[in-house]
């Protein structure tokens, strides 16, 4: 089963995933028409700034067991087993924020949503684009990401690649990392800028 894997070290903070996510979860499904919709479609992936202003793409991990699901008072949170996705039923949600207290990643937001009953404030989070996946598409955030910070692949394959990277970097004749040098340069610049500002 393919899953969205996040590689925060590659994120440049362009926030295109947020735009694509909001458009994918709008009524009309297109960015150009989505901006005129009420309620305004909002992203379910959140690019935050790290300690040195580096981009940090934060989205639901679809934990198993999911703390939000165990904390949900009305039982609105459930798992869609075919895509291993934790979903929130907007009809059942009572907007009590119990899931906000349970989510260790802080990825749940509370607002009116195009896909919820009109005018109702509900808990909203990543749904792995189950509707898009059903149509044979990949999640919108992965499709739009230009730098490979978000990939859609088998978790075992991603883990194996990571393990090999660590193993290679630990050998005596360690090969240079595959990552393009631009990423580390960008992060170094951002870090230096933050530290200079702090020193002032």
């Amino acid at each position, binding site marked *: 089963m393919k899953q969205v894997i996040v590689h925060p070290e590659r994120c440049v903070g362009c926030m295109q995933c947020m735009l694509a996510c909001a458009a994918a979860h709008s009524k009309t499904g297109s960015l150009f028409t989505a901006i005129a919709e009420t309620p305004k479609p909002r992203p379910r992936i959140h690019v935050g700034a790290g*300690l040195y202003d580096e981009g940090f793409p934060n989205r639901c991990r679809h934990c198993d067991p999911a703390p939000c699901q165990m904390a949900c008072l009305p039982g609105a949170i459930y798992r869609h087993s075919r895509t291993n996705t934790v979903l929130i039923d907007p009809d059942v949600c*009572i907007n009590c924020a119990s899931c906000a207290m349970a989510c260790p990643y802080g990825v749940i937001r509370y607002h009116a949503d195009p896909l919820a009953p009109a005018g109702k404030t509900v808990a909203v989070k990543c749904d792995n684009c189950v509707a898009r996946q059903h149509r044979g598409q990949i999640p919108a955030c992965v499709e739009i990401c230009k730098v490979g910070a978000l990939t859609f692949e088998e978790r075992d394959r991603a883990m194996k690649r990571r393990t090999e990277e660590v193993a290679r970097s630990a050998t005596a004749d360690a090969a240079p990392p595959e990552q393009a040098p631009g990423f580390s340069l960008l992060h170094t610049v951002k870090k230096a800028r933050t530290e200079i500002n702090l020193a002032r």
Partner: protein
Amino acid sequence: MKHVIIGNGVAGLTAAETIRRMDPDSELTLISDETFLPYCRPMISHLLEGAVPAEKLPIRGKNVYAQNRIEPVLGARATTLDVDRRVVTTADGKTHAYDRLLLACGADPRQIDAQGRDLENIFFMRTVQQVRQMLAVLPEVGHALVLGGGLVGFKAAYSLLRRGIAVTMLIRSGYPLSMQVDETAGRMIQAVLQANGLTVRTGASVEAFEGNGRVRMAHLSDGTRVSCDMAVIGKGVFPAHGFVPADRIHTDAGILVDDNMQTSVSGVYAAGDIAEHMDIARQRSWVNAIWPEAVSQGRVAGMNMAGEIVSYRGSLSRNVIRVFDTDVMTAGRVSPRDIDETCRQFSARDLRRNIYRKLVFSDNILVGFAMINDIEQGGALTALIQSRRPVEVEPERLMEPGFNIGRLMAR
């Protein structure tokens, strides 16, 4: 193997489902004095408010007992427990033998000592039945008196205000939610409620209720009187372990359990509002009677009863409440009564956006926080408390508007 569970709250039900999943062949009996289907207790205030109908309260379907092959024994409270003969007796005189027993009997509301306590329209708010009784009399209620500024009193007052009923809240301490928050947050919450019509009286308690059959007036300890046609008592709860042989099963405030949720008697377990285990933030034995801990304790107890040895990591007091347009989230040690000289406290307040943050550290370990508004990242802080991981980042960075867990990760 014959399992008996006392209590059909979320701890008992979660344990029953866990046992059934892991051990399809065992016998399962569930004893409860409540006859309503297993329901979401924290939501009874939403029922009082009118935000959800009663049909939404059950957390499982109508056939939950049949589906899990549970034999329900409802409407009968457990009255005696014989741990040598391994038998529970219920109020109707029936006996139930067990091999493994789970005490998930929850807690009962604390009674108050006031004259005229037996008048009509004086309620506790603990069960769906009590809220239904309140709903039945609401049409004739113009002014309600709420005793206690804790979570129950607070939710009762909010729900009644939303119904358009005038509410007076009596608080013994100086501000509402004094067990959960510090004074600054308490005053902010009080201001919100007052702006929406709540009258708050501090430092006074009820000495006597007066009325002709129904309550009409309350006489307070400071000599004043408050007219009211309804009263809600929210003076806390205490674990319902009165029938448990205290000489055999060790109890403190609650029933003491080990990491496997087992009591001092082998084969007898406890979970939920009745159980007392290690508090992660306080690092001492504590009863944290909250929904999410009842779920995890029920799960761990069920696994151990089914023979799968797993440990519970300890509990953490925490709460989240939304009142009018204000959100309040707290966890761990924040109240002045939980703070000592070893604590380092940090706070930040944005008056324009009505945001408040308070962090409490013990050395460099986060042990408590309070947040007013913008609470989306509260879960990340809760997880940080639960991890007991030393925090390397400056505390101020955790209170900034743009805080996200990316800032806690070494890069």
